[in-house]
């Protein structure tokens, strides 16, 4: 049973230990902040406080307060000791958010594009320490003539320190290899659109539990070191895709260039990118509260575009260490030596600092653009059909088979069509999609 004991202490006029109710106490711990909206005054609780007593003792041992179970967050725990801290506890929220993702694992889809022989496969193997292309058969020139640009996918599961990544590499063999390469990027663009479309359908469906996300998060475009900057094919490819995917340009086989040559080429390529209005992936700006080192790194990153890379599948011995590299009679090129090439910068950017951002930009910008366009074009279809029905007085469903290209319309017709489209736009896209589905997929 509890037996409160009151100690009467005489402090004269001093009331240091008066038990005031509901007021701020001197040692409010730093974690605790009053709500931004302002702390309301609690009622001045007119109950007379025990002026003399200092502490009330109980027989029961009082535990460390606040007591809490062993934290499941181990080294991610924001509260790093179990001492008496008066905190609420929601700083563990970021950990909670990612607990499920960590359990499920992450995924990332990387596309590599560029002419054959630029070292794409080797670079991918070097980046992710995999051997995705072990049993590849290299085609000779005759065999290549009849090839169209294929899209191939390799998936690999990588685990490191308990984190699982499902990595998908989308390759584009045959790109730029033919004699006539007009529109050879079309199959690439179509592939990207197909992934968006599939995601859009899934997202608009009724059962959204297990949506597969195959959208391409990043495209490494390989620029040949043998040219003078960008070639026409490079420009056309990047312009066709810069609004569908994050493009990261890469200067391939950089070990054929001296450092000065590399610098000159980078500057030239950057100028041309700007000149042609190509929107490559932009690194997000640093927050003002980041430390100086981070800001410096960020600046260096931005000035390294395009990344001059070298890849290697072999390990050589350099200065007593075993490193990935290429052995030449005149020296050893070390892949992971930042004085030799930008491989480390690229890898860090891709994996260690910007992987999440690449996915976010894909999701929030490229995909949303696709979705908006898709909805608009579906709406146009509906309006056309309605008009056609009005003309022919057929009582068909809303979506008969789409007909050929529309006849050129007059100004008034255009205004009417636009007004119709606006009306239909008011209808929820999901209804449209369901109707389209029923019509075309059954």
């Amino acid at each position, binding site marked *: 049973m*509890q037996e409160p004991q009151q100690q009467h202490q005489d402090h004269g006029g001093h009331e240091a230990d008066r038990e005031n109710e509901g007021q701020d106490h001197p040692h409010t711990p730093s974690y605790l902040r009053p709500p931004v909206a302002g702390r309301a005054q609690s009622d001045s609780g007119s109950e007379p406080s025990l002026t003399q007593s200092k502490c009330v003792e109980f027989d029961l041992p009082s535990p460390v307060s606040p007591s*809490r179970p062993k934290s499941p967050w181990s080294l991610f725990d924001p509260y790093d000791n179990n001492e008496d801290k008066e905190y609420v*506890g929601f700083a563990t929220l970021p950990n909670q958010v990612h607990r499920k993702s960590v359990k499920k694992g*992450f995924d990332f889809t990387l596309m590599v594009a560029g002419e054959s022989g630029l070292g794409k496969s080797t670079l991918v193997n070097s980046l*992710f320490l995999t051997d995705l292309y072990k049993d590849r058969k290299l085609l000779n020139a005759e065999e290549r003539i009849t090839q169209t640009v294929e899209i191939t996918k390799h998936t690999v599961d990588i685990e490191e320190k308990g*984190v699982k990544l499902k990595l998908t590499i989308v390759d584009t063999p045959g790109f730029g290899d033919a004699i006539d390469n007009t529109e050879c990027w079309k199959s690439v663009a179509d592939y990207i659109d197909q992934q968006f479309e599939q995601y859009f359908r899934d997202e608009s469906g009724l059962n959204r539990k297990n949506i597969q996300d195959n959208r391409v998060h990043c495209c490494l475009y390989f620029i040949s070191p043998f040219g003078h900057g960008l070639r026409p094919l490079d420009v056309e490819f990047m312009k066709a895709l810069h609004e569908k995917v994050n493009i990261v340009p890469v200067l391939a086989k950089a070990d054929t260039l001296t450092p000065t040559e590399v610098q000159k080429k980078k500057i030239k390529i950057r100028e041309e990118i700007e000149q042609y209005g190509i929107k490559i992936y932009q690194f997000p700006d640093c927050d003002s509260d980041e430390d100086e080192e981070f800001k410096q790194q960020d600046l260096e990153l931005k000035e390294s575009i395009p990344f001059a890379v070298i890849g290697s599948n072999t*390990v050589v011995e350099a200065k007593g260490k075993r490193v990935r590299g290429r052995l030449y009679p005149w020296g050893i090129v070390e892949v992971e030596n930042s004085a030799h090439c930008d491989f480390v910068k690229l890898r860090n950017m891709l994996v260690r600092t910007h992987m999440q951002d690449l996915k976010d930009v894909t999701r929030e910008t490229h995909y949303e653009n696709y979705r908006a366009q898709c909805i608009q074009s579906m709406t146009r279809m509906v309006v056309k059909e309605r008009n056609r029905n009005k003309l022919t007085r057929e009582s068909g469903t809303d979506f008969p088979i789409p007909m050929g290209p529309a006849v050129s319309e007059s100004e008034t017709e255009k205004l009417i069509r636009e007004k119709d489209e606006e009306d239909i736009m008011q209808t*929820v896209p*999901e209804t449209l999609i369901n109707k389209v589905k029923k019509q075309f997929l059954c």
Partner: protein
Amino acid sequence: MSSHGHGGSQSSGGGSTLLGYIGIDTIIEQMRKKTMKTGFDFNIMVVGHSGLGKSTLVNTLFKSQVSRKSAGWARDEKIPKTVDIKSVSHVIEEGGVKMKLTIVDTPGFGDQINNDNCWEPISKHINEQYEKFLKEEVNITRKKRIPDTRVHCCLYFISPTGHSLRQLDVEFMKRLSHSVNIIPVIAKSDTMTVEEKQEFKQRVRKELEMNGIEFYPQKEFDDDMEDKSDNDKIREAMPFAVVGSDKEYQVNGKRVLGRKTAWGIVEVENPNHCEFAQLRDFLIRSHLQDLKEVTHNIHYETYRARRLNENGGLHPICDTQDSNL
């Protein structure tokens, strides 16, 4: 760079043993940074008839004056004739994490003479939030981060009669457990002794089971064995018998939150006195995100599927402001 363990990573593509460490685990840090920047929303509803200490408990949970009563509204306002829904929001911060906390109060619930259908305004409010979210989601130009006003958690306060659940309790929880996460708590539990508490809890749990009320964490949503065993322990201990207080007293040289009576001080955070600490740890420190996820992935999806199916589709969006072309 350091290699971890046996060095290098494993891949199912016939694996390479070439040296090094890629750095995939850093993605966790990247995600953390991002989510910390964007901040979190959390919406909690409190339901129970007046005088059960709802506002005080919420203040105690978040260690701030966040309830409606503290926002300056009259403490002795009249009991409304129908159930009101009143929300109040605050931004609180801890450890670099910002949370926009919204407390939805339901004054008038269970206070009338005839309490028939008094759950309807509450149900309507919950569905309205789902509808709002759905409308945003189907928009053509969508916001990057749709503002989330959906109720993530509903704390239902059971009166500590010591007997059993009241009919109103059963009706409410039965009807709403399928559209929102309900967490029943036994209010003002310092009116019961330890034995009385245990008996009452058991009786309440049995009644909940008999009536088929699935409170949070629901058995059917346990993902894997690890979740199931964690959640089983919590389900066994629920409903938590709590005491709330926003006043501090000195006990054994430490300042603790408590209620002072003539026969002793009830320490709110002392697990021997009441189960507040357990509730808080469960609600905030381990399952906060899960509450949001279950709301989003299950309750909201159920609502959405129902809406898409009925009447052949959703009604046209009337508000032209929404569809920016």
